């Protein structure tokens, strides 16, 4: 069962209630439910972000959830989670802050682009944890809103990713565009209120 019709979720069906926000974002939950049942819903409530983030970073970074079957759920995985957690949380907060700064603020939209913020935000769309992707997409959509120059820059970056030689990168680009389109709609609706 593919709940959103995008066909981006090879591990669909693992989310018992079909509400997992990670799947809605195009993330690919691997095997974490073997250790913490219902982890996706826990994420929704924000109860155990530290644990979930670490797993996401590792899996998303490798882009191969199957590699993290039970044999790999050992010490090395935990180490990579611990090392990555602080940075991942900070990235998510930074993207969130840039989203707030740029919302309906033309000067800040331009200033973030001038500070070189677009490329790392686009990168986060493909490799960050699902919540980080959401924040990065929201920030990019806000930075691009009514700013043709920023729209052009972001679109160029995404097209480059879409035409990359390797399939994982192209897949990330497709996911990024999907996230961005949703975030754009959300920002437009927020502005209309």
């Amino acid at each position: 069962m593919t709940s959103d019709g995008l066909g981006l979720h090879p591990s669909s069906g693992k989310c018992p209630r079909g509400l997992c926000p990670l799947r809605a974002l195009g993330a690919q939950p691997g095997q974490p439910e073997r250790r913490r049942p219902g982890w996706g819903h826990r994420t929704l409530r924000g109860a155990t972000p530290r644990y979930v983030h670490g797993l996401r970073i590792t899996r998303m970074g490798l882009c191969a959830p199957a590699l993290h079957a039970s044999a790999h759920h050992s010490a090395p995985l935990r180490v990579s989670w611990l090392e990555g957690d602080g940075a991942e949380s900070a990235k998510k907060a930074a993207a969130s802050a840039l989203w707030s700064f740029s919302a309906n603020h033309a000067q800040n939209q331009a200033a973030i682009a001038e500070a070189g913020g677009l490329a790392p935000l686009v990168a986060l769309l493909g490799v960050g944890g699902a919540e980080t992707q959401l924040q990065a997409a929201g920030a990019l959509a806000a930075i691009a809103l009514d700013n043709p120059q920023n729209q052009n820059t972001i679109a160029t970056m995404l097209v480059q990713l879409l035409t990359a030689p390797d399939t994982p990168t192209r897949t990330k680009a497709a996911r990024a565009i999907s996230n961005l389109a949703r975030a754009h709609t959300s920002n437009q609706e927020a502005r209309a209120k």
Partner: protein
Amino acid sequence: MTSDCIPHQAIAGIGAITPLVRLLHEESTKAQGKAAGALASIAMGSKDNQTAIAAAGGIAPLVSLLSREHGDEVSAPHGL
């Protein structure tokens, strides 16, 4: 804007923006993340605060933070 902006403006008004931006330059990613979260809240829905944070130099360290590769603390988690 709406009345929920008032606390944010009050926080900004007592001079929180400058020390929060300073905190963004700390080595600790935890400190940076918390500062970024606070600034995000302060900026939300307040054009004055959005402008003030940018003027205080808040954008550049946040852009750097987006690309940061490693967290700072590696501590033993409970129950593992």
